[in-house]
C-alpha cells in the first residue's frame, strides 16, 4: 500500500522538523518534485499522474497528497508508493515520490492439466494480463486454483507458482502455475446412524452433492466436495423439518480415508419427535374473521407441523395463499408472523399475528430496462393500473404477460413496489431485453437442380412505422411489438415457396385487436424421370407439369373478457388459387385448370400457458372452423358428374373443423407433464358433391412440411414412430391405394402424453429432454371413423430452443402397430425424427 511520510523519514528529519498535525493541516507551496526508485517507468509521466505540480499550493496532511498516492497505486504498476518531504523551508516544501516497481504479468501458463481445464481456470482466477505480480497475487491465485479443484472432488491438489522474468526491458514476467491434482476422491460408503422414522433412501436422495460410489452412476458421479457435504447436511435437516420433525439435527459427522482414492462418511442424526398442530389462533385481524382466515390457510387440527408448508400457505401460492387475501385488496403492508404459542407432548398451538396495515393505491408505473421495446408495447401488457388498489395477483399476471411477449428474459423480470409517503405505491418493473428474432438459413447448390435451401426470417418485435426512418435500422426497425415473418424455400426450379406474414397485435393502438396479413406463393413442378438418363443436362429444367398455389389472407383477432380474459377470438378471410398444369396431383383426373377457394376461418382459443419456452403450468385450447361458401346450393355445376371435372372444381367447397388442447402440470420438482389431444374433420355441405380433395389431413412422421414432402393443399400432422404421411385407414380397412393415401384423410385424431425435464433453462439455450406416448389415426371416410382405433407409439427425444434459431428437436419413436397397405414397413419398428420450429399438433 502507499504511505505518506513526512518529517519522520530519516532523509528528511535533520533538515525539516515538519509538524504533522491532522487537526491543523498547514498549507505549503511545492518547491520541488522528484521521483526515486523507478527502473522502467518514465518519471515525468509518473509525476503527471500524481496531479501535483511545482508551484501548487498543497495542504499537508490533505486530500491532494492522498489523491496522488491513490492515482499512482490505481495504475496497477507499483507495489508501493511513498511521498516524502525532503526539504521544508518556511512554506516551501520539496517532495520526493519514492516508488517500488514490480514485474507485470505478461502471460500465465498452466502445467499439468488439460486444455479444457485451463480455459475454465482462466475464467475462474481472473488473472488480467498486465497486472502486478505481488506476493498477494501469487498466494491468492494458489488458493483459488486449489479451491477450484477441491470443488471438483480433487481433495489432494497441489499447486506451485513460479514467476519467471520474460522481458527485462519492460519488467514483465510469466506466471507458471504447476498443478498436480492427484486423483478424484470418491465416497466408498455413507453410513447413516440414528435414523428410524423416515426412509433411508429419502435421506440419501436429499444429499444431492454427496453420493456413494455405485456402478452406473452417470449423472451425479460420486465425489467428495467439503462444501457440498456441508450443504447436504443442511438439506437433511430441512427435509426432517418439512416432515414435522422440528427438533431434528445432524449431531455428529466424520469423514475418514478408506484408501488412497476413497473416503468413508459417517453421519449421526438425532431425529427428535414429530409434531402436530393442535390449535390455530389469530391476532390482529380486523378485515377477515378467524374462521375465514383458517379456511384460507387450509390447515386444521391434527396436521403435521411443517415450517416450510406453513410458509408456502402464507406466501407461496399466488391467488390463494394468505397474503393474497390481503394483498389483492391493496393491503401492501400486510404481514403475518406465525408463532408457536405452546408445546405439549407432540402437539403445538400456533398463533398467527397479523399486521394488516393501510390500503395502498397505485400511483405510478415505472418501467426500466426496455432498451429496444417501446414503452407503449410493454405498458399495455401491465395489469397493475394507476388509481387501482395494489393487487398481488395482478402483479403475478403481469409477470406472465411480460414473459409471454417473448422480448424479455422471463427469469429476470423485476417487480418492485415502492411505497410512497402519501400512502400510494409506485410499481417499478425492470426488464432485460433478449434477442427475439429468428433466422433459419440452410442451403447449397445442387448441381443440375440449382439452389436448394431455406431462408427464413422472423422478426418478433418489428416496427413498421419506422421503415422510412433510416436511424431506426439497427439492424432493423424494432420495438413496436409487430411480427414480420419472411420465408423462402427452394429445391431448384422444381419447388419454390415464398411467404410473408405481418401481424400487428394492437391495431390502431387503442384496443388489443390484432390484424394480420399473409401472402404466399408455392410452385411445384414434376419432371420426367426418364429424362434423367436420356438428357441429364436438361433434367431439372424441363418439366412435364406443375402445381401452383397463391394465397392471400387477412385476419382480425380480439381478446375476450368472457368467460375469462384468457380467451381470444380471431377471424380471417382467405383467398387461395390452385393452378394445375398437366399434373393430376390428387389422382382424381383433375389434370388441368384453375381452382379457387374463398374461406372464412374463425378460431376461439384460450391460452393460459405460463412461459412460452418451457411451460410448467396452464393450458391452451382452440377450436378452429373453416367454411367456404356453399356453391352447390346455387349451381349444379359442382354436383353434376357430366360437367367437365375442370369446372366442377372451379370453386372449392368444404367445411373443416379442428380442435386442439394442450395441458401442462408440474409432476414433481422440475418434471412437467404435457397432455395433448388433437382432432380434425373435413366435411361437405351436399351429399351430391364429392368430398374436397383440397385441405385434407395427412398423418405420420415428424409432421414437418419440409423437403421431400411439400405442403400441397394439405394439413400435415406428425405421429412419431411412423413414416411420414404413412398413417391412414382406408375404406373398410382395405389397403388404400398410394393415390388414396397421398390424397389424405377426412378425419384424424391424435393424443399425446409427454413428460419433460429441463436440462437448461438459460434463455440463450433452453434445453429439455422428453419421453412420450402417443396414438393417432387418419381416416379416409367417416364410416370407418373410430376414435379408439389408434396407431400407438412411444419414444424419447430432446429439444433445444435458441433465440436465434427457434426450436430444434430430435425424437426417437417406436411404432407398435402395423399399417395396412404400408409399402415401407409391415411390422412395428423405430425411427428418428427431426423437427424445426414449434409444432402445434
Amino acid at each position, binding site marked *: 500500500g502507499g504511505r505518506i511520510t513526512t518529517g519522520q523519514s530519516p532523509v528528511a528529519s535533520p533538515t525539516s522538523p515538519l509538524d504533522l498535525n491532522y487537526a491543523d493541516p498547514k498549507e505549503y507551496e511545492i518547491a520541488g518534485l522528484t521521483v526515486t526508485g523507478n527502473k*522502467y*517507468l*518514465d518519471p*515525468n*509521466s*509518473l509525476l*503527471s*499522474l500524481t*496531479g*501535483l*505540480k511545482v508551484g501548487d499550493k498543497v495542504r499537508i496532511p490533505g486530500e491532494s497528497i492522498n489523491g496522488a498516492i491513490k*492515482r499512482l497505486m*490505481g*495504475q496497477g*504498476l507499483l507495489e508501493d508508493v511513498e511521498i516524502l518531504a525532503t526539504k521544508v523551508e518556511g512554506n516551501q516544501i520539496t517532495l520526493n515520490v519514492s516508488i517500488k516497481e514490480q514485474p507485470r504479468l505478461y502471460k500465465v501458463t498452466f502445467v499439468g492439466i488439460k486444455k479444457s481445464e485451463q480455459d475454465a481456470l482462466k475464467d475462474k482466477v481472473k488473472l488480467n*494480463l*498486465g497486472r502486478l505480480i505481488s506476493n498477494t497475487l501469487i498466494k491468492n491465485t494458489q488458493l483459488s486454483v486449489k479451491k477450484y479443484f477441491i470443488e471438483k472432488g480433487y481433495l489432494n491438489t497441489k499447486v506451485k507458482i513460479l514467476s519467471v522474468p520474460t522481458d527485462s526491458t*519492460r519488467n514483465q514476467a510469466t506466471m507458471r502455475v504447476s498443478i498436480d491434482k492427484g486423483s478424484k476422491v470418491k465416497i466408498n460408503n455413507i453410513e447413516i446412524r440414528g435414523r428410524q422414522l423416515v426412509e433411508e433412501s429419502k435421506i440419501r436422495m436429499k444429499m444431492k452433492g454427496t453420493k456413494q460410489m455405485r456402478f452406473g452412476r452417470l449423472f451425479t458421479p460420486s465425489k467428495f466436495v467439503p462444501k457440498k457435504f456441508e450443504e447436504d447436511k443442511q438439506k437433511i435437516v430441512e427435509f426432517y423439518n418439512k416432515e414435522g420433525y422440528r427438533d431434528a439435527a445432524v449431531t455428529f459427522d466424520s469423514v475418514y480415508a478408506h484408501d488412497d482414492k476413497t473416503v468413508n462418511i459417517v453421519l449421526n442424526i438425532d431425529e427428535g419427535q414429530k409434531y402436530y398442530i393442535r390449535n390455530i389462533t389469530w391476532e390482529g385481524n380486523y378485515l377477515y374473521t378467524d374462521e375465514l382466515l383458517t379456511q384460507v390457510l387450509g390447515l386444521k387440527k391434527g396436521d403435521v407441523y411443517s415450517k416450510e408448508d406453513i410458509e408456502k400457505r402464507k406466501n407461496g401460492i399466488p391467488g390463494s395463499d394468505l397474503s393474497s387475501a390481503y394483498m389483492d385488496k391493496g393491503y401492501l403492508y400486510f404481514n403475518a408472523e406465525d408463532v408457536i404459542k405452546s408445546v405439549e407432548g407432540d402437539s403445538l398451538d400456533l398463533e398467527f399475528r397479523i399486521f394488516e396495515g393501510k390500503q395502498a393505491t397505485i*400511483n*405510478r*408505473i415505472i*418501467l*426500466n*430496462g*426496455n*432498451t*429496444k*421495446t*417501446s*414503452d*407503449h408495447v410493454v*405498458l*399495455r401488457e401491465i395489469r397493475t*393500473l*394507476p*388509481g*387501482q388498489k395494489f393487487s398481488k395477483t395482478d402483479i403475478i399476471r403481469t409477470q406472465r404477460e411480460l414473459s409471454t411477449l417473448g422480448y424479455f428474459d422471463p427469469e429476470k423480470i423485476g417487480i418492485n413496489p415502492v411505497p410512497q409517503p402519501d400512502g400510494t405505491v409506485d410499481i417499478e418493473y425492470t426488464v432485460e431485453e433478449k434477442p427475439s428474432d429468428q433466422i433459419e438459413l440452410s442451403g447449397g447448390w445442387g448441381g443440375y437442380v440449382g439452389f436448394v435451401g431455406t431462408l427464413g426470417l422472423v422478426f418478433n418485435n418489428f416496427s413498421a412505422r419506422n421503415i422510412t426512418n433510416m436511424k431506426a435500422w439497427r439492424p432493423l426497425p424494432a*420495438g413496436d411489438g409487430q411480427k414480420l415473418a419472411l420465408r423462402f424455400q427452394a429445391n431448384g426450379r422444381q419447388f419454390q415457396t415464398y411467404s410473408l406474414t405481418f401481424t400487428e397485435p394492437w391495431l390502431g*393502438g*387503442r*384496443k*388489443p385487436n390484432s390484424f394480420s396479413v399473409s401472402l404466399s406463393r408455392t410452385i411445384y413442378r414434376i419432371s420426367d424421370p426418364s429424362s434423367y438418363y436420356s438428357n441429364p443436362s436438361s433434367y431439372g429444367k424441363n418439366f412435364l407439369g406443375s402445381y401452383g398455389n397463391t394465397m392471400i389472407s387477412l385476419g382480425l383477432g380480439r381478446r375476450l373478457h368472457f368467460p375469462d380474459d384468457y380467451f381470444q377470438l380471431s377471424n380471417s378471410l382467405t383467398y387461395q388459387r390452385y393452378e394445375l398444369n398437366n399434373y393430376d396431383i390428387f389422382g382424381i383426373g383433375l389434370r388441368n385448370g384453375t381452382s379457387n377457394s374463398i374461406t372464412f376461418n374463425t378460431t376461439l382459443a384460450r391460452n393460459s400457458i405460463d412461459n412460452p419456452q418451457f411451460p410448467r403450468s396452464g393450458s391452451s385450447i382452440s377450436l378452429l372452423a373453416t367454411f367456404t361458401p356453399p356453391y352447390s346450393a346455387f349451381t349444379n355445376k359442382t354436383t353434376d358428374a357430366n360437367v367437365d371435372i375442370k369446372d366442377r372444381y372451379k370453386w372449392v367447397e368444404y367445411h373443416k373443423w379442428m380442435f386442439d388442447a394442450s395441458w401442462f402440470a408440474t409432476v414433481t420438482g422440475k418434471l412437467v407433464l404435457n397432455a395433448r389431444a388433437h382432432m380434425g374433420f373435413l366435411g361437405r355441405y351436399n351429399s351430391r358433391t364429392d368430398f374436397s380433395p383440397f385441405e385434407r389431413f395427412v398423418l405420420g412422421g415428424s409432421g414437418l412440411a419440409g423437403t421431400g414432402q411439400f405442403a400441397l393443399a394439405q394439413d400435415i400432422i406428425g405421429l412419431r414412430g411412423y413414416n411420414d404421411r404413412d398413417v391412414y385407414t382406408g375404406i373398410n380397412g382395405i389397403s388404400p391405394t398410394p393415390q388414396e393415401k397421398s390424397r389424405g384423410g377426412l378425419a384424424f385424431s391424435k393424443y399425446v402424453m409427454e413428460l419433460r425435464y429441463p436440462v437448461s433453462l438459460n434463455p440463450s439455450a433452453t434445453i429439455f429432454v422428453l419421453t412420450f406416448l402417443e396414438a393417432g389415426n387418419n381416416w379416409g371416410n367417416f364410416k370407418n371413423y373410430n376414435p379408439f382405433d389408434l396407431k400407438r407409439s412411444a419414444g424419447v427425444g430432446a429439444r433445444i430452443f435458441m433465440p436465434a434459431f427457434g426450436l430444434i428437436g430430435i425424437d426417437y419413436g417406436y411404432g407398435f402397430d402395423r399399417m395396412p397397405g404400408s409399402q415401407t414397413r409391415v411390422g412395428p419398428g423405430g425411427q428418428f425424427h427431426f423437427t424445426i420450429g414449434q409444432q402445434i399438433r
Partner: protein
Amino acid sequence: CSPFQKLQKTGTDDQKYQAAVTYFKKGEFYRAGLLFEELIPILKGSTESEMAQFYRAHCEYQQQNYQLSSFHFKQFYETFARSDYAHEAMYFYALSLYKDSPNYNLDQSNTLTAMAALQDFINAHPQSPFRQECTQYIAVLRDKLELKAYDKAKQYYKTSAANIANYRSSVVSITNFLREYPDSKYNEELAYLRVDAQYHLAKNSFADKWKERHQEVVNYYLALVDKFPKSPDIKKAERMYEDSRKELETIANQEKEKLNQQQKPAKVTATTASN
C-alpha cells in the same frame, strides 16, 4: 497482406504509435483505434500513454461508439486530472452520453446520466466555451423526458376503450404530469383529456360512485377553464361539465327527497300523537 496488417504484426511499438497518430489525423479512426487499443497496456507509465488514451477515446467517439467513448473519456479525465486535455475529455464524456441517449419511448437511465454529466461539466467549468452548448443539450434532454411522461400519461387514455379502468389510470397519470411539469406545452391538451377521462369514468360507474366522480369532473373542468380558457376543446369540455352538474343536481334532489321521506313518517306520528 496490407501495409496495415504488416504493421500490426511486425511493427515496433514506436512505429505503431506514430502510425496510429497519422491514421487518426487522416480520419481513419477504425485503424487508429485498433492500434491505440493494442498500445495502451504496453505504454502504461510512459510519456505517450496520456495522448494514446485521449486519442483512443476520440476514435471511439468518431466511430459513434458513444458508450465506449464516454467510458474512455471519463477514465481519461479521472486519471489525468491535471492534463491540458482534461477539460475537453470531460466535455466529450458528457457529449458522448448525450449522443447515446435513447429514443424517448425507451428506458431513459442513460438520459439521466447524460443530464447529470452535462450539469457536472457546467459546474466544474463555468468559463468553458462549451458551456452554452451544454445548457442547450440539457434542455433537449429535459424535453425528451417530458415527452416520455406525456406519452405515458396519454397511453392510458388512448387504451381506455379496451379497459374502462384505464380512464381512472389516465386521470391519475395526467394529474401526476401536471404536477411534475407545471409549465409544459402539453398541459392544455392533457387538462382537457383529464376532464374527458373523468367524465367517461363517472358515466361508466356504479350509482354509488356518481356523486364523487361527477364532482371531480366539475373540479377538473374548472381547473381547465381557469388555466386554458382558449383551449380548442373548451366547448366539448363545457358540455361534459354541464352534464355532470345536472347529474349532481339530480343526485342532490334525490338525496333531499330521501331525507324528506325519512322525516315525513316522523311528522305523521307527531300529528297523530297531538290528536
